[in-house]
């Protein structure tokens, strides 16, 4: 017993000696979707490092990159990969960055509880419903699939500034930001839940966490990627096993390479990667595979700058593992 205690004291002593006291300020900003993850990491990090002040802002993925590329922040949270125009803006100011995938989100297609006809929906039908050509034309459900009733369609979705909108339009319509305009757009996913729960003919899309919290109010529709494939429900299991395509999307945070030289930033990044597998689940997202977190750690340690997406956005159905394997030095 005494030996054990002495050993414990030694261990704790060596811990307090080896762990240098970190201090300073770390600034993160960007996507509201990624915010809860960075907030959770900052909260836990703050408990261990009381002298490091971590702040997290919300200005959207695009707004976050504007500040990041102007050199105003250390981290930029993003619900999509960095775009070509943003890569150029960062380049113009000599801002280099390491791209870290941190979690998956599953965009969930939800309908009203009284909607008894929609057992599943194909991506082609979602395209027919959401593409710009549908505006003012596709107005009742039997126009989407002939066996569905002659019930008026009421659509809800995120506003055009949202990364969720960018990703959904890219994955479903085929080109980013192409969407019909006659839907109720909002920056608050709770409004989508409310809208869908009050209209029998309603359909909306939003992040998995919002569906998980509102299962009593709305129903998720299983999505069929291609004809002949089976319908898949949005769930963390189906995101992990790679079957929920094309609507599962990766979330990122970008860190400045020169900021990584500051011990408190490096400490925060290491902590982020180590804690992400547990914390992402706690706040309603899906953890990446362990090998991807390893890749993230390697990229940080090697200060491998740049995005493996090359400004092109994430093509649905291509695994992150393959991308990072090809993109890493």
């Amino acid at each position: 017993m005494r030996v054990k205690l002495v050993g414990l004291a030694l261990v704790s002593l060596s811990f307090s000696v080896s762990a240098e006291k970190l201090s300073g300020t770390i600034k993160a900003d960007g996507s509201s979707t990624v915010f809860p993850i960075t907030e959770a990491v900052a909260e836990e990090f703050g408990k261990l490092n009381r002298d490091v002040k971590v702040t997290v802002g919300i200005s959207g993925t695009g707004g976050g990159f504007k500040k990041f590329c102007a050199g105003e922040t250390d981290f930029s949270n993003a619900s999509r990969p960095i775009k070509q125009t943003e890569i150029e803006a960062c380049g113009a100011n000599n801002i280099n960055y390491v791209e870290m995938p941190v979690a998956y989100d599953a965009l969930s297609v939800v309908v009203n509880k009284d909607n008894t006809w929609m057992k599943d929906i194909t991506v082609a039908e979602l395209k027919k419903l959401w593409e710009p050509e549908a505006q003012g034309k596709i107005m009742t459900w039997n126009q989407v699939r002939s066996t569905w009733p002659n019930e008026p369609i009421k659509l809800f979705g995120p506003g055009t500034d949202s990364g969720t909108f960018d990703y959904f339009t890219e994955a479903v319509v085929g080109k980013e930001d192409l969407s019909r305009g006659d839907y109720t757009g909002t920056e608050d996913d709770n409004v989508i839940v409310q809208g869908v729960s009050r209209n029998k003919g309603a359909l909306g899309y939003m992040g998995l966490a919002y569906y998980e919290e509102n299962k009593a109010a709305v129903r998720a529709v299983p999505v069929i990627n291609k004809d002949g494939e089976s319908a898949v429900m949005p769930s963390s299991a189906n995101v992990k096993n790679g079957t929920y395509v094309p609507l599962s999307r990766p979330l990122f945070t970008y860190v400045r390479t020169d900021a990584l030289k500051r011990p408190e930033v490096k400490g925060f990044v290491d902590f982020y990667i180590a804690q992400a597998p547990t914390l992402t689940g706690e706040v309603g997202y899906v953890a990446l595979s362990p090998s991807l977190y390893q890749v993230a750690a390697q990229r940080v340690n090697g200060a491998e700058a740049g995005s493996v997406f090359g400004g092109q956005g994430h093509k649905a159905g291509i695994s992150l593992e393959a991308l990072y394997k090809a993109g890493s030095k």
Partner: protein
Amino acid sequence: MKPHLAKKHAEKIFLGLALTALILTILFLFTLLWDVISDGFPKISGGFLSGYPSRKPSEAGILPALAGSAYLMALTAIIAVPIGLFAAVYLEEYANKSYLSRILELNIANLAGVPSIIYGLLGLQLFVRFADLGRSVAAGALTLSLLILPVIIIASREALRQVPKGFREASLALGATKWQTVWNQVIPNALPGVMTGCILALSRAIGETAPLICLGALTYVAFVPDSVFSAFTALPIQAFNWVSRPQAAFHENAAGAILVLLVLLVMLNSFAVFIRMKFQKQYTQG
């Protein structure tokens, strides 16, 4: 129908309309209050007031937001009240009724109606970027000061005008200079009215979210600001963030934060009423 009967009917209809309008307003107000209080009151506790933001709704608190709002308000008052008062003194006591001063007056009245988000954009360029203050309490307070200055100037001028002309004439007749008259007679007598206007303007400022969001005020801040250059968050921003989270427990937190903000506002407004009543008493006694 006889004409006097028609008049009587018109009277009744008018009274009915006015009463309905009043009842509707109060009904709306009470529904809103009831909604916020029933959701938010159970949340209010020592831990909620002294806690830091957290991913766990039950552990999350509003201390940084509350402190941020308090700092903002104090600093805004320190900046905006003297500037607003002196601008009003100039316009009311010194400025000639020239073409220029009339244009000035018109512009100040117009500025009072400019949407608050415009002030946010101005603050972002002027204070955050150009003056390089960053997203600090100082930048926030300066922006809110700009926002409420027109209101303070208009209210202060109103208060200065209420000071009887006889006070000025008596003071000047006794040999006091213009400056002495304004400093010793006019301002002290107008001060309660000025204060009332300032407090009402300040209570508008602490409820503002749009200019602060535009400025880039932060959402997760786990410390109390320690200087005017410190990063900050404020109650409306914290409430806004919690409302948009998926978990219902966060929505209750938001109601709690809104309730605290409401209590702050009621306190400020009652302070304004208190000052006004004291002022009226003094006036009748003197």
